[in-house]
């Protein structure tokens, strides 16, 4: 029962990793941009939620109503004002520019909020749990987090394959030049993709911040978890990304159970094993 519990907790954490990963893979899929600052945007969203909850005195989960549109607007402006100018045949310029952004965000947050660990207070829901069986219970908050991840990934999947916007994303990803001949403005489509990515980041950032302490320096590690979940799941497959997040979460939970110091190591090992055995990931995109 103890192990069942460990694995269950790992699965629930995996949902959060999948959300880190979904925004990352969305951007890479649509415009071949690797956003090194992705983890720092998660932290930025957490701090935005902190400011919103403290000034308005509202619940962190309610603050999503403000933080999600705000992050989406930041994403749109950032893409149009800066990142679109770095895109081209060369992968390196966007990599360098987002690396620079990562440094700027971390130091900006450090300046404004100091290096102290912070946390969003969600009240009674933080410790609430359901008992599934004797000795096996799940926290309401981790469950909500996982449910949110499934909903976000299902929503992205539907958006990509059922809507005109998703069609525009896929067409622009296939052939940006011909997409323009269809009347799609690449600059606008890319900016919408970044807005969507940062909206997902906002949800992930707030849910992270109600469960764990955060400080300005934790972004890069979230980026790594996101990367690993994407690679384990297989590039370009959203449900695969969810599976990748779960594999990573379970590996970390098992590692932590064996020895508290092995949590991160176990996750990285699981990633390396998948990379070695199935470099295309567990569920690679099926190409027609």
């Amino acid at each position, binding site marked *: 029962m103890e192990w069942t519990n460990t694995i269950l907790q790992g699965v629930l954490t995996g949902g959060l990793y999948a959300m880190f990963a979904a925004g990352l893979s969305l951007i890479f899929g649509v415009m071949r941009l690797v956003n090194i600052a992705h983890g720092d945007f998660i932290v930025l969203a957490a701090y935005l939620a902190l400011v919103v909850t403290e000034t308005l005195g509202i619940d962190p989960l309610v603050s999503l109503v403000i933080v999600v549109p705000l992050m989406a607007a930041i994403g749109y402006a950032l893409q149009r004002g800066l990142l679109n100018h770095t895109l081209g045949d060369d992968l390196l310029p966007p990599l360098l520019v987002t690396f620079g952004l990562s440094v700027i965000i971390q130091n900006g947050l450090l300046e404004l909020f100091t290096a102290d660990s912070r946390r969003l207070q969600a009240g009674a829901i933080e410790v609430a749990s359901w008992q599934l069986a004797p000795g096996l219970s799940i926290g309401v908050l981790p469950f909500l987090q996982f449910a949110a991840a499934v909903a976000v990934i299902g929503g992205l999947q539907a958006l990509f394959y059922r809507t*005109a916007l998703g*069609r*525009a994303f*896929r*067409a622009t*990803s*296939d*052939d940006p*030049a*011909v*997409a*323009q*001949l*269809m*009347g*799609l*403005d*690449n600059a606008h489509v890319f900016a919408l993709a970044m807005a969507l990515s940062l909206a997902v980041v906002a949800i992930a950032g707030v849910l992270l911040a109600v469960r764990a302490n955060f400080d300005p320096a934790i972004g890069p590690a979230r980026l790594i978890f996101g990367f690993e979940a994407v690679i384990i799941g297989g590039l370009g497959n959203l449900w695969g990304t969810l599976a990748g997040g779960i594999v990573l979460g379970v590996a970390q939970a098992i590692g932590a159970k064996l020895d508290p110091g092995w949590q991160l190591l176990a996750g990285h090992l699981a990633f390396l094993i998948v990379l070695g055995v199935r470099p295309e990931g567990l569920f690679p995109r099926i*190409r*027609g």
Partner: protein
Amino acid sequence: MPEAVSAPLLDVRALTAFYGDFQALLGVSVAVARGQVVAIIGANGAGKSTLLRSIAGLMPGRRDAIVFDGEPIGHLPAHRVVARGIALVPEGRRLFPSLSVEENLLIGGQLRRPGPWTLKRVYALFPALAERRRLPSSALSGGQQQMAALGRALMSNPRLLMCDEISLGLAPIVIRDIYARLPSIAAEGISLVIVEQDIAQALAAADQVYCLQEGRVAFAGAAREATREAVAAAYFGV
């Protein structure tokens, strides 16, 4: 306004285009009247595709080098040119591989320009596409892909349709089949510009013909008056 009626739909005036330091077009002038079919012929590298890409806005340049329906559009990017009513069927078809046949058509019509062309009309013109609407576009044969590319361009309800080498890599019977549909497209009042390697095919389909040679217009005239000798001289520069 009698002047506007007699003015050409598309007026390309001394158009130049560059790839880096290489000048691909050295002052090309082409006019397309309303309802007319114009063929552009010429050897490989003569600048035919560059001309179409420039008109479509993929290589924006001088504002008044391209005038469409009395408005200068030479400086507009491609997504705004198609909104004005110019569609390009690109060389090599270039369907979107991760979209189904029907999604390819739908994205062609995503600007919702009013006009006669709808999914239903395109399927009526190319019944082979209707049967394969749910398939990925990459599952089509070469000829069907060309039909899908034509249909995708028509879905934008263009006033000017430009086709770049629609016969390239297709069997003669398929080429005849596709060319046989062009009159029903032109019957909707759409002007056509076709770039072709197959000179006989181009001359048979067109009212007016331009022959490009090394980035210049070497011959221009009515298609039925273009003699073999005149075209050969312009084509090869002899």
